Structure formats: C-alpha cells, structure tokens
C-alpha cells in the first residue's frame, strides 16, 4: 500500500466497529471541530480537497454540495448510497461492517454543512451484517446524543434513517434510489432538474457514495491540503479497491491514486491463482470495459490513466480473469444480469437487454446465426444515450469491449458452435478443495 491509508487506518478486531473503539481512535472530535466552523467553510474545504465521487461517476463532491443554497427556506436532504450492487464491487461493505461510525460522523458533518435535518442511508436489502452493524452504530450514536436535537450542546439537530432496499440494481442509480426511498418502484428520473435542485420529496438532495462520505471526517480533520498530498493532482486521495475473480488474494485494499497497477496485481495480490497468466481485467465493476494484459502495461490506478488505457475506474471493483476462461460464457453471465436488472421503463434497454441475452444464449448453445456479433453491437449502440439512466449504455459499452478485445473467441464459437476454452469460467479448482 502506498500513501497513508485514509479509511483502512486501524486494526480490525471484534470490537473495532463500536462507538467506544471509534472514540478511542479520535472519533467524533472532528464533528466538534466542524460545528465550530461555518457551514460554507466546510463545503469550501471539501471542494478544495478535490474529493471525487467514489461510486462510479467521479463527480467532484464539493461541486455537488455547492449547488445547495443555504438559507433558501426549504428542507434539504442527504442520502448515502449504500446500494452497492455493481458486480465485482464490495468495498462499501467494508466500511459499513468495520467503520460505521466514520460514515455517521462524516454524514453529521455533511448534514451540518448542507443544513440537512434528515439524513438517509439507502442500503441494499441483501446486506444483513452491514445493516446490523450500521443500525447498531446509529442506536449507539443516538444514545450518546450524537443524533437528535442539541447535538454536542449546539443548536444543530439531525435525524437519520437506515433505509433498506429490497432487491433492485437500478436503485443504486441516484434518482432510482430517491424514488425507492419515497416508497415506490425504483424508476430513475429524467434530469434536469438535477437532484440537488429537486430530489427526494421534490426538495434539494445530495446523494453521495458511502466511501465518498466516509472521507469527509478526515478531510475536515486534516484539511484539504493534507488530502491533496495523497494521490495524483487530478485524482487526489485514495480508493478502496475490491478485487475478485481468479486473483490469488482477493479482498479490499486501499490504494493511493497513481499506484502502478501491475505490481498491485502481481505483488500485493499475489497474481493469478496457480500462477496462471492474466487474460483480462475488468477494472471498475462489470459496466467498465475489459482490458487485456498488454493494455495494462504502465497503467497507474487513477482515473486519467485508466481512461487513456480505454476503460475507467468505475466503482473500484476489479475482476481479474486468468487464461483458460471462456469470454463468451462470461459475457453471457453479464448479459443475463443486465436483462434481469433492466427496470423496464425505457424501451431500448428493456427490449435491448432481452435481445442481447437471447442472442448470447443461442451462440453459447451452438445455434448462433450469421451476423449475431454485429447484431449485439448494433443493439448496444442503440442504447447509447437513449435511456433515462446509464445502465443500458454501460451494458452496451461493456459488451462492445468484450467483442472488441476477444473477437476471435466469439467468431470461433459462432463458426464452430463450441468454445475455444471448453466453456470454462472457474479455472481455480477451488470448489473441490
């Protein structure tokens, strides 16, 4: 790990998620400091830090916050997006399970800066332990007078609701999330108006990823300059990277932006299981374009470098794919997922995901038709920019990425009705261990 860890900066023990342990690490002292500052000064500090959104879009957090007009006479809302559902991503879960109070302290500071009376954490319905840990932390914080009215003897009042989803990938999209908190099916909404203008209950709302928010306490404690000293000039700070697939040591790692990627994969994470060669890397959740080993030469882990390599940093969820893996069947798994999760609101996505899923199914069944690869690309392109949210676009880019980088495998499957790699997805043999 290079650079100071900002989030994973303590030893995890059976008690380290509790309030007492967090206080022993200096927890909630930054809240006291923040309450002595002006709300605008906090937003300015966050803006100066250059903190980028950690959920996938990398939008500057300070710029989002600055849209909120203080003293406009209407309530504002703050929501933490804990609907972590992008396949390959499990980093926010680390924060929810191990550092729930860091998230809560950061949210209190953000709520004070944005003059928010009611905060929400929208957490995916399947997360049971993360929910229990977070809800327990909320109750501890209420008992300690950190939520409610007269927080730390000030006039600041804030309540928080941990809102559980019920199984919907699209609710991780900010406007779908809001519709879900309103108690409806989670359809995304057209923008404009932006959610910072008309969001939850039609009022100005800031939605930030869990990890983005968790960084707030540290930024206010140490200052924007200290945050900028880590990472690169265009991507300050660190990212929690969750890595899975055929990697020898999967898990969550905190990387300073700018860390060389290949040494991370092959030294820190021990390379591929069984010393196999790297065939491909999905760098930021399955909605980001797959890269091959040659693409990764010289790449550093930051937004600009991954963009230059032809993909993006996304949600920090890496999936390492070893030699011997059938990329056609892997794309089949991905298309099945997108078809399952399309919310059905927009025609290009609702129909397109189904068509792509059926085409890949027939290719895998050995019944592919001439022109099927071109059909997949045409449907993927038809989604681009024609839907309310970005799910269909992203599914299209990722599909084109697979066809682009591994074209020969797809052509072989189509021509011969069978896989070049025997249809294998698991090359680790771990199931029989």
């Amino acid at each position: 790990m290079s650079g100071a860890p900002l989030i994973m900066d303590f030893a995890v023990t059976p008690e380290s998620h509790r309030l007492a342990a967090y206080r022993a690490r200096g927890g909630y002292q930054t809240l006291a400091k923040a309450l002595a500052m002006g709300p605008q000064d906090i937003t300015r500090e966050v803006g100066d830090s250059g903190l980028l959104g950690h959920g996938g879009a990398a939008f500057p957090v300070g710029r989002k916050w600055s849209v909120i007009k203080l003293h406009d006479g209407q309530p504002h809302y703050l929501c933490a997006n804990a609907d972590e559902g992008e396949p390959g991503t499990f980093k926010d879960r680390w924060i929810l399970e191990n550092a729930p109070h860091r998230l809560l302290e950061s949210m209190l500071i953000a709520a004070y800066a944005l003059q928010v009376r009611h905060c929400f954490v929208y957490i995916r319905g399947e997360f049971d332990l993360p929910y229990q840990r977070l809800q327990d932390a909320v109750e501890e914080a209420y008992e300690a007078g950190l939520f409610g009215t007269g927080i730390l003897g000030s006039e600041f009042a804030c309540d928080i609701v941990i809102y559980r989803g019920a199984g919907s990938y699209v609710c991780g999209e900010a406007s779908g999330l809001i519709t879900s908190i309103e108690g409806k099916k989670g359809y995304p909404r057209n923008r404009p108006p932006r959610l910072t203008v008309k969001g939850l209950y039609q009022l100005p709302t800031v939605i930030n990823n869990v990890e983005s928010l968790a960084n707030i306490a540290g930024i206010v404690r140490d200052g924007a300059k200290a945050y900028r000293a880590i990472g690169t000039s265009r991507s300050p700070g660190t990212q929690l990277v969750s890595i899975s697939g055929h990697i020898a040591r999967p898990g969550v790692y905190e990387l300073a932006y700018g860390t060389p990627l290949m040494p991370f994969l092959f030294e820190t994470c021990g390379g591929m299981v069984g010393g196999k060669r790297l065939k491909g890397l999905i760098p930021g959740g399955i909605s980001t374009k797959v890269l091959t080993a040659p693409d990764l030469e010289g790449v550093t882990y930051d937004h600009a470098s991954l963009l230059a390599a032809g993909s993006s940093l996304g949600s920090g969820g890496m999936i390492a794919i070893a030699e011997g893996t059938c990329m056609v069947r892997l794309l089949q798994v991905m298309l099945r997922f997108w078809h399952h999760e399309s919310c059905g609101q927009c025609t290009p996505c609702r129909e397109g995901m189904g068509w792509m899923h059926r085409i890949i199914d027939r290719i895998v069944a050995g019944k592919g038709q001439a022109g099927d690869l071109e059909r997949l690309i045409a449907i993927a392109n038809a989604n681009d920019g024609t839907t309310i949210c970005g799910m269909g676009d992203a599914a299209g880019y990722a599909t084109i990425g697979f066809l682009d980088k591994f074209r020969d495998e797809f052509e072989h499957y189509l021509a011969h009705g069978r896989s070049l790699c025997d249809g294998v997805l698991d090359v680790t043999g771990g199931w029989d261990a």
Partner: protein
Amino acid sequence: MSVVVGLIPEFEGWKRRFPPGTEGSLVLPCLRRIQEARGFVADEDIAALTEYLGVPRMQIEQVLSYYSQYRREPIGRWHLQVCHNVSCSMRGAERALDHLRSRLGIEPGQTTPDGRYTLSTVECLGSCGTAPVVMVNDSYHESMTRSKLDRLLDELT
C-alpha cells in the same frame, strides 16, 4: 387475518425519525417487516397496509412486483440463494448450483415437497472476494466448497 395490526406500534416508532408527512416512504420497510412476520405478504396485509399508510393500493402492488426480495407465496423453511454472477461463476457457483440441484432434487424456483428447502439463483450479493456465496435466509455463507456446502446442508434440518 392481517399481521399489520400487531405491527403498528413498531411502525409508529419508525415514523419519528422520518420527515413529517412522508408516510409513503414506509411502504418498503413495512412490507419487509410483514414478510418477516408471516413469511410472505398476503392479500389481507396489502389491504391493511393501504388503509394504515393511506397510500394507493397500486403503489404497494407495484413495489411488491418490482423488487425481487418480496414474496406473495410461502416458501421453504430454508431459502438457499446461490449467486451466479461474474465473480461467483469464476469461483465455482455453477457447480455449487448443480450440487444443490442434485442433492435437493429441485430446480431453482422450486421448493422440496416436505417444505424444507427452496432453491433460487440470485445476482451479485457483493460477496465477490469471498466467492462463491450461498445466502441461507438472511445470512451469507461465503467461500463455499463442496464439503462446506454439504456440512451446511446437514445442519439445515
């Protein structure tokens, strides 16, 4: 009879932390709690919740059909959900699913005749680094192998 009446004191407690006048937001949490109490959401629960929250019945019906975790029918005592998304498939999820199919004698979406087990497939559970994962009722069982899954099944009686 609806289970809603007995849960109203609990629902009233939740309201205190929501902004005033946002009762509609309680649809999802109330349905989850109803399902915990009964095992699924029955017609009479929908009627009672419609009345209690004062929201259109259609809103509740839409929520029930939109989200994958709500059930309108009872299921087995043990609900085994196998993640078969990318990272789990790369670590043996398909073989875990085949193993459960043959041991339980049912396909995904089915319940054993004795009402003990229901088998489902599920998309990414955020357990990719400890794949493959099988969710049993509310709990994750991670880094599954054939022998771990066999031991788990033996404990679920």
